[in-house]
């Protein structure tokens, strides 16, 4: 299938600061492609290059066959972009914002209403309200509507759900799935691992490089370590410090009510027995499988060259 996004050897530096190093990836029509990475990993720089707001130093990027360097005018007509910060007009009402963005793209609210209908019905009761007075979840829904109002072929979302509550996040992702079903390619940066699982493919970015790129289920399947998942009745922080002293434990992290210990698969049984013998008040979870967050923690920590702590 023809790809909507193609990036080959993209590099970008700001002075001596390297933001992106020879990045390659492609995304197909209708694909939801996630980018995960620490602040400063290069996600925003990449998005700005693909949306023609920045020029790369080297490499080639194409959006629907158009070159980001030469064809930036055409590209701007076929992409929708949601910046990391709320960037609608706070003084305009919900309806006025939508009309404004439609007009900028020579379109109308009616023309592509079908695409935004599911989202807009949630906003409609507030259509006379100033955008600045909306709750966080509603602001994000409005921003998504504005980014979709001209029926773009590619949607670029820079951390659209940061600061948004869990219920609104779920609704937002339901909306994204509807949009993807229309064949629109979505690139989305997110710090939430549950959202990473909802992407068709994800790339883990660190210091301007892609550490991993695949379907989430495949990243989990390829995880080279074993994970021991346990709970304690006692002080969690003290237990974490003790477990980190075990040489066989490669990482020890809190995961909600549980603690995850990673190790070589071959010694999992031995390490589990050793922990059970040394600590009281511990219970091991019946399900002992790694998740996407275990994978990302492992790859990020490995790339960091930092161990355990």
């Amino acid at each position, binding site marked *: 299938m023809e790809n909507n996004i193609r990036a080959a050897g993209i590099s970008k530096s700001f002075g001596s600061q390297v933001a992106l190093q020879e990045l390659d990836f492609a995304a197909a029509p209708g694909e939801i492609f996630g980018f995960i990475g620490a602040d400063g990993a290069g996600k925003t720089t990449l998005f700005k290059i693909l949306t023609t707001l920045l020029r790369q130093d080297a490499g080639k990027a194409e959006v629907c066959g158009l070159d980001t360097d030469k064809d930036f005018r055409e590209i701007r007509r076929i992409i929708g972009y949601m910046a990391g910060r709320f960037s609608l007009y706070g003084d305009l009402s919900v309806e006025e914002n939508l009309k404004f963005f439609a007009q900028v793209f020579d379109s109308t609210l009616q023309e592509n209403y079908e695409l935004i209908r599911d989202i807009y019905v949630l906003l409609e009761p507030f259509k006379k309200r100033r955008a600045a007075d909306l709750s966080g*979840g509603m602001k994000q829904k409005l921003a998504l509507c504005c980014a979709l109002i001209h029926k773009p072929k590619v949607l670029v979302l820079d951390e659209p759900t940061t600061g*948004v*509550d869990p219920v609104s996040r779920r609704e937002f992702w339901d909306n994204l799935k509807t949009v993807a079903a229309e064949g629109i390619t979505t690139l989305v940066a997110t710090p939430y691992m549950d959202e990473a699982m909802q992407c068709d493919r994800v790339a883990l970015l660190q210091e301007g490089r892609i550490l991993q790129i695949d379907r989430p289920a495949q990243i989990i399947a390829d995880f080279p370590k074993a994970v021991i998942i346990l709970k304690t009745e006692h002080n969690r922080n003290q237990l974490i410090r003790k477990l980190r002293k075990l040489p066989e434990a490669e990482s020890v992290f809190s995961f*909600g009510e549980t603690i995850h210990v990673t190790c070589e698969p071959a010694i999992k049984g031995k390490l589990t027995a050793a922990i059970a013998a040394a600590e009281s008040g511990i219970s091991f979870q019946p399900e002992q499988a790694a998740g996407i967050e275990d994978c990302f*923690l492992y790859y990020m920590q490995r790339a960091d060259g930092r161990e355990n702590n």
Partner: protein
Amino acid sequence: MAEKIIETVNLTKRFGDFTAVDAISFEVNKGEIFGFLGANGAGKTTAMKMLCGLLLPTSGQATVAGYDVYRQSEKIKLNIGYMSQKFSLFSDLTVWENIEFYAGIYRMPRQAIITRGEKLLQDLELASQKRRLIGALPLGIRQKLAFSIAIIHEPRLVFLDEPTGGVDPITRRRFWEMIYNATERGITVFVTTHYMDEAEYCDRISMMVDGKIKGLDTPANLKLQFKEKSMFDVFLQLAREKSHEAL
């Protein structure tokens, strides 16, 4: 009985005919991590502003660190720490200037600012970064520094408003380890978050829906009470009840 660091009775705030915080009553014990959860627009920020002495309540009572929110808001401000993800440090000041600024606001004596400031930088391994602008530091480091500065005056209580919003999984965990270390020194932590795994790190949690507290207990007991497997499901159940009421 445990010492109470926050006590509220029917604390209420109205803006015109809109009730943002609707008669909430709760207590926070000394030394605990108290999670303050709720959807966007549920009234968390308004409640927090009243507790920090920044906003006068419409009615009800509240004491924070032993001081009354109506009459002793200045005392409250000196005895608490505050940090949020949206606003914490000044990016066009250096690391050391930020330390001096905040410690000065908390009216710490000159010598104490220097001693504790240097200690803080050593603990964070930032001594070499002292003269760098905050804006030049990665977000993860800024967050840790902001938290350390928020408690530089050893307050009895610190408010953290979405301290880990937008932060990667490793940095989030390291940040929570710092929170635990602070509680081990006896500092009480009042924290809001949208990450449900972080809700599990709290000793007790309150769930706010439309200005009211709809649940308040340990994470384990809340899951039992609402018969759900995870805090996310508890959150979802409460929010759905809300939309049923709306219909």
